[in-house]
């Protein structure tokens, strides 16, 4: 059982890594958000795979569905923000956006 879990979790970790790499290196705001989406895929894979190997698929399935609903809401909000950013700077470059010091 642990071998199956290992397989899925290894791939989920791979997805998380790809997403984080994108967040750290890319400059396009839409590209950054695609990185976020990749991370979300890793998370939903981890959730469902855990339920699957522990014979709890039904529960895990309902969690994944809720997670997807959250994702949709988040994507809508984020893309609305991105469109507004574009209206202001006429660019999608994160370097042109950063004025605040953090």
């Amino acid at each position, binding site marked *: 059982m642990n071998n199956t879990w290992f397989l899925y979790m290894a791939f989920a970790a791979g997805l*998380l890594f790809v997403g984080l790499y994108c967040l750290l290196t890319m400059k396009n705001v839409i590209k950054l958000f695609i990185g976020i989406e990749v991370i979300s895929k890793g998370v939903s894979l981890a959730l469902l795979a855990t339920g699957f190997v522990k014979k709890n698929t039904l529960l895990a399935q309902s969690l994944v569905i809720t997670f997807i609903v959250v994702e949709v809401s988040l994507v809508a909000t984020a893309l609305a923000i991105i469109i507004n950013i574009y209206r*202001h700077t006429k660019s999608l470059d994160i370097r042109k956006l*950063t004025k*605040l*010091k953090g």
Partner: protein
Amino acid sequence: MIFLFIGLPLVVAALLPLIGKISKRVLPDLLANAVFLLLLVLAVTAGRQVISEGPVLKQLNWLGEPVGITVAVDGFSLFMLMAISLLTLCVSLYSIDYMERYGAKANYYALLLMMAAGMNGLVLVTDLFNVYLFLEVAAIASYALVAYGLEHDELEASFKYLMLSVIASAAILISIAVLFGMTGSLGFTAVAAGLRSLDAKFVVGFCAALFIMGFGLKAALIPFHAWLPDAHPSAPAPISAILSGLLIKVSGVYALTRILFNVFGLTPALSQVLMYLGAVSIVVAAFLALGQKDMKRLLAYSSISQVGYVVLGIGIGTPLGIAGGLFHLFNHALAKGLLFLNSGSVQHATGTRNLEEMGGLAKRMPVTAATSLIGSLSIVGVPPLSGFWSKLIIIMALVQAKEWPLALVAILASVLTLWYYLLMQRKAFFGKLDEKWKNVKEAPFWMTASTVILALLSIGVGLFFSAFIKSWIQPASDVLARGIHLALGSWGI
């Protein structure tokens, strides 16, 4: 009754856009404030009776049949509910005048109500996944509220905040997935019981680390704080007040302590980690605050520093320390809410947040100046204001636990705090009045009214601190001090 805390804001928020079509200003104002007032009254009066015989679980009945909606009410969650309703009420009173210039009030109140519903839900749930879910409800509403001005800075801050929050949520969910894999369930009780029967120190440590990272990002503890000094100043003033006063505490500190104390059980190692995270936040953020020219940025850094005190106090893990941390949480919510609202009043009157440009505003805005002096002194910890007692309790608890270096840090950092708050007061309100500000007027009625309420509360809680601790803080800290036995015993299997 307790379900109203989640249901009522949700229903009213859903109706508000329709109501906004009929009446643009008056009805949304009235309705939103009425909801928050009702929730506050409920929390203060009826809520106490619910938990008079200890923590209870409540299950919702739908058409006579119980459905799978269960909430847990105990001292800690009731205390948080009271704090949430109190500050949201003051903020929404303030918004009556302040949000005029942003337009679309119905929409604004709808988002504010959603945020309140999210926070109330987060405080009441009994299940790890629901914690994540309600966290997200409050977070999504807050992204839009931070960007509400639709200007360049707001949008940038909101985008940054969103990115980091999503990483936080991912960390939290991975940790939840691992716990789910180990115990096969998600409820606090079942997970606590499962972890007790398993010997899994290593994995619990890993999950705790992920939770600390995730919720630490939400609470803006120091290595994870990058988003806060942008997001909080950029938001409209009432929203800054809610974000700094409540959201970082509910979605960061509350969720973290609830899970670490009542589900994992606090181990000495975890306690050390929390204490040092808190201490680092206190010191670093205090130094960062010293150099700020922007009033709201200064307040934002000070929020990080004060949340450090809260985490430090709770992290000690003794009943006294927990009580001190929770008391400071409440006092900071009042005082920082008040200061952010005042910064909004100043910006409303003068159009600037730059401390260098201000000066002598006390002559033109006496109420704002007086209330923000009270707020500053309360955060700094000057007796008899409420902030003094909570810092005193935290330091006493540190001494009692023989953590001398940390006690010293806590004392010295409050000197730094005094320094930058006096700097702010002097630059903004005292000194000579600049020619530019000759025609500045005091803020409109509701704005001053809500700041006066908060200032009076700061004084009142300070004067009657022992009664307040006995009736609100003690039940809350008892809940945490009982650790996992609460989840196993009182919520009952």
